[in-house]
Each structure stands twice: as C-alpha cells, then as structure tokens.
C-alpha cells in the first residue's frame, strides 16, 4: 500500500488481549470458514451454520459480524457501511468492535479496504479483486414471503421450482403498473439458485454481476450464509415486457453533483423543502476532495 492512501487510514489500534482475535473462538471461526467454502462452491446456495450469540442484538448485523470475524486477518483493512454511510451508529460501533478485538486497521475509503462489511449498499466506487464484501442479511430465503415452511423452500431450491418468484413480480405490476420491488430484489446466481441479495436497493443489483470481488452474505438470526464468487453471473428476475430497471433521479447530488449515484432524499424544513445527496458518503467526499464537484 502506498503512502498516499496509507494516510487516509486510521492508525492501527491496540488490540484488547482479553478477547480472542476478532472476538470469536478459533473453533467457531473454522466452522464458519468451512460453511463459506461450501457457499463459494455452490453460488447462491444457503448453507446453515451454527450462529453464535454476538454482543449486539439480532438485526444489527450479527451474521455479517460473524463472517467478518471468521475471515479477518491481522493485515486486513476493514470498512463498515450502513445505508451507504461510514458515520452512522451501527457502522461506527462495528468498526470500533473489530478495531478493539482484532486490532485491525480501519478505513472509510473503499479502494483501501480489503474487507467491507455492509448493510443496504454496495459502494459506488468499483470494487477490485482483492476485496471481500460481507453483507448483513435479515431474511436469507427469497421464497419465504410466499412459503413459510423451511422444508418446503429447501425442496423448492433443490428442485429449481421458482415459479412463485415471478408471482411476486406479477403482483407488483398488477397493483402498481410496474415492478415496485425496490430493495432485496431477487436475483438468479450462476443460472441456478434464486438468491436474496440482502436489502440493497435494486440500483446495486447490476454491481453484483461479474464483480471481481468476493461477495459473502450471512443472516445471524436465521443462521444461514451464502456467497457469490468473483466473476459470477447474477441476473435480476423480470418479465419480457417489464424488464428489470434501476432507480433514476431527476436531481444531482447537492454536495458533489454526481448524477449517477444512489441518492438519499433529505427533508430540510417543515415546508417540505427537499435536497438529494449521495447515499455513499465516501464516494461523495472523494468526489468533493478531488475537485470534481460541479456546483
């Protein structure tokens, strides 16, 4: 790593010796890695794992944290994002957690990170081959909304019985005139398994396709993990006459002027004045600092 990028990373913190490296015990980490090997071997297949209790509530990223703990090495640089931002409570505390228990370097810069744990977004900056994305997943099974039985959904996955996935999209079109599913938009991985890409906006779905980075997903409460290996085909489900489309905005980012990133709407006052800013705070800050701002 060169000196210019090094300067952005925070200095390597002191590891708290009271904890095992990255909090989890070695046996648990081995078990999770075994699960990961299987998940990578069968792209999109949900592998059960013995989820451990983590020192934060379910739904706050316990699955993602266990994966991060299992794959983290002393030389890794960790970035954590929540809703695209590096500075939200959840992102800050997970970053601090690993800084303290593993003593790893952390960063807010996407290109510097080797492991990026995320909730809701894939960074706008293109990923490269040395990076691993770790997604926090609430409900791993895309069939769950229509089929409550786990035995049944497993059989459906095994038999490639995915007709019901289109029932959901059909309902969207029948109700709203277009496919209104905006996040957790189901995808087919490697032309075989239908997968829930976690609650990322469908805007980010195309970034999964043929990505050079390894994508790992984990649900802590449901105790399932799955993966998309690098350079794997990921296609979003759609209809011939209602093809898959990503969100578009009529506005540019109010801070950096970007016209092709995912924007968050901010309400500025009681009269409903809106402003749109990049959801990816690092991407936005980099654009500003590189003087590419158009405003």
């Amino acid at each position, binding site marked *: 790593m060169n000196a210019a990028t090094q300067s952005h990373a925070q200095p390597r913190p002191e590891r708290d010796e009271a904890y095992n490296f990255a909090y989890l015990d070695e046996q648990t980490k081995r078990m999770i890695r075994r699960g990961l090997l299987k998940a990578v071997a069968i792209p999109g297949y949900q592998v059960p794992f013995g989820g451990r209790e983590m020192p934060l509530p379910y739904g706050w990223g316990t699955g993602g944290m266990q994966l991060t703990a299992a794959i983290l090495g002393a030389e890794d640089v960790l970035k954590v994002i929540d809703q695209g931002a590096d500075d939200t409570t959840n992102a800050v505390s997970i970053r601090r957690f690993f800084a303290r228990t593993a003593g790893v370097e952390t960063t807010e810069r996407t290109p510097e990170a080797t492991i990026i744990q995320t909730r809701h977004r894939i960074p706008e900056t293109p990923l490269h081959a040395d990076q691993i994305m770790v997604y926090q997943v609430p409900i791993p099974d895309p069939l769950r909304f*229509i089929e409550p039985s786990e035995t049944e959904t497993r059989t459906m996955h095994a038999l490639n019985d995915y*007709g*019901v996935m289109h*029932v959901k999209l059909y*309902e969207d079109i029948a109700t709203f005139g277009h496919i209104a599913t905006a996040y957790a938009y189901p995808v087919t991985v490697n032309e075989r398994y239908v997968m829930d890409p976690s609650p990322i906006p469908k805007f980010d779905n195309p970034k999964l396709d043929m990505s050079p980075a390894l994508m790992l997903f984990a649900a802590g409460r449901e105790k399932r993990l799955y993966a998309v290996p690098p350079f794997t085909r990921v296609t979003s489900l*759609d*209809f*011939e*006459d209602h093809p898959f489309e990503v969100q578009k905005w009529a506005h540019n980012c109010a801070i950096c002027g970007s016209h092709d990133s995912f924007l968050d709407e901010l309400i500025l006052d009681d009269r409903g004045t809106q402003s749109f800013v990049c959801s990816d705070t690092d991407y936005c800050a980099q654009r500003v600092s590189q003087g590419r701002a158009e405003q």
Partner: protein
Amino acid sequence: MIAAQHLHEKLHQDVLADPVQPLLKVKGLSKLYGPEKGCQDVSFELYPGEVLGIVGESGSGKSTLLSLLSGRCLPDSGVIDYRTTQDHWLDLYSASEAERRTLLRTEWGFVEQNPRDGLRMAVSAGANIGERLMAQGVRNYQQLRAAGLDWLNQVEIDPARIDDLPRTFSGGMQQRLQIARNLVSGPRLVFMDEPTGGLDVSVQARLLDLMRGLVRELDLAVVIVTHDLAVARLLADRLMVMRRSRVVETGLTDQILDDPQHPYSQLLVSSVLQP
C-alpha cells in the same frame, strides 16, 4: 384460451394415435394406517377423457387413495404407471420428486376440498391463475394477464375481479378460481377431492354444471372423490365404491346407482334422501 386450444389439439392427436391406451394404470395399491384404515389392493385403469368417481363413507380411504394416486404420499405397496404426453410410461413411485412435482403442475391438476388449501390467499386471482404458467417459464406479463382474464371468463367470474384477493371471493367463486388455476396449464388428468363439499346446494349445482362443461370440452380425465351420489351421477362415467379401505364394487355410474350389487352399495344408494 390458447392453452385450452393447444391442449385440445394435443389430446386430439393422442386419441387419434391410440384410442385404446389407458392414461393411468394402477396395480395393487395399498397404504394402511391401521387395520382397514387407509386403502388396500386397489387396481384400475383410467382412460383419456374418462371421469372416475370414488364414493364411500367417511374414513373409507377415498382421500388416502387420492393422495396416493397424485403421488403426494407413497404407498406400502403397489404400482402406478402414467402415460406422459411423450407417450412413454412413467412409474410414478420410482420417478424422482422433481418429476412428480413437474407432473403435478403441468399435466396434472389437484382441486382441494377447501379452496384455501389450493389457492394462494395472499396474492390476487390473476397471480393465482398465472402461477403454473410462470412455473413453466412464461415470462410475458401480457400473456399471463390474457390467460388470467380468459380463465376467469371460462369459470364464470367477472374478469374485472382479476386483481382482487381470493379472500374477497365467495366460497363458490374461490372453488371456481381453484379450478381455473389448475386448468390453465392444460392438464390431462385432474384429481378432485370433494370439490363441491362445503358449498350450498344452488352453488353446488352451478359448479357441477361448469365442471361438466369443462371436462367434456377439454376432454379431461378426472378422478373425483365424493360422498355425494348426485355429484357422482352428474359427472362420473365410472364409479368405484369404497368401504373399510377396500373397493367393494366398480362399474358404470348408471349401473351402480340403478342396480347396485354389493350390500354396501345398496345401502349407500338407498340412503339418499328423495325430496
């Protein structure tokens, strides 16, 4: 309509190709949950376009037999051979689960007694009808929509209700919707478990009328379980009378209802109230 026409042509060819080949051959089928509980030693053949009624008292094994026939549960012993559209014989129980499932959602249909078991109550009528087509790989919304409207028409439901949830439908409408959902894939063989149970008499009559029309029009082979002899008389070509897990009498419907031979059949026929 397209599916129905397609089916029609297909069936027509089948019939022309070999008019005497049965569709389903059942040999020595048994599944017992206890002594005389379940069904045992059932053998018959079903021909294309034929309606077979299974009648008998509660607990006589009718529904067990239907689950066995449709491959939903496995028998203690016995064999079922089904002649597929490709005209080869498929041994139902040695086929893989994937093959059985594919059959159940393409060439076969299953109409449940309670429409709530056979429908997806959380999605609209149109989605219910379209599901089988989507499972078969139809990825064109307009086509699915057209099939939905067409089938609502065929089962006498106002097509304007295509986007309504099944729970806003009356019991009779739900049952008709379930029939539409099964027939949309153009099946050759439909299993029905007391399709008119739980409906009031006038709705029953209308449903039966509709079903009779569809069965004749689409040349469906049907296995229908009922305890209502009027339903059997109206729909079935042939009857099997079951009692205590065994088939006690089989024959043409009129023959059995007008001249029952077995004491139990006689009892069953004579027990019908004459208004």
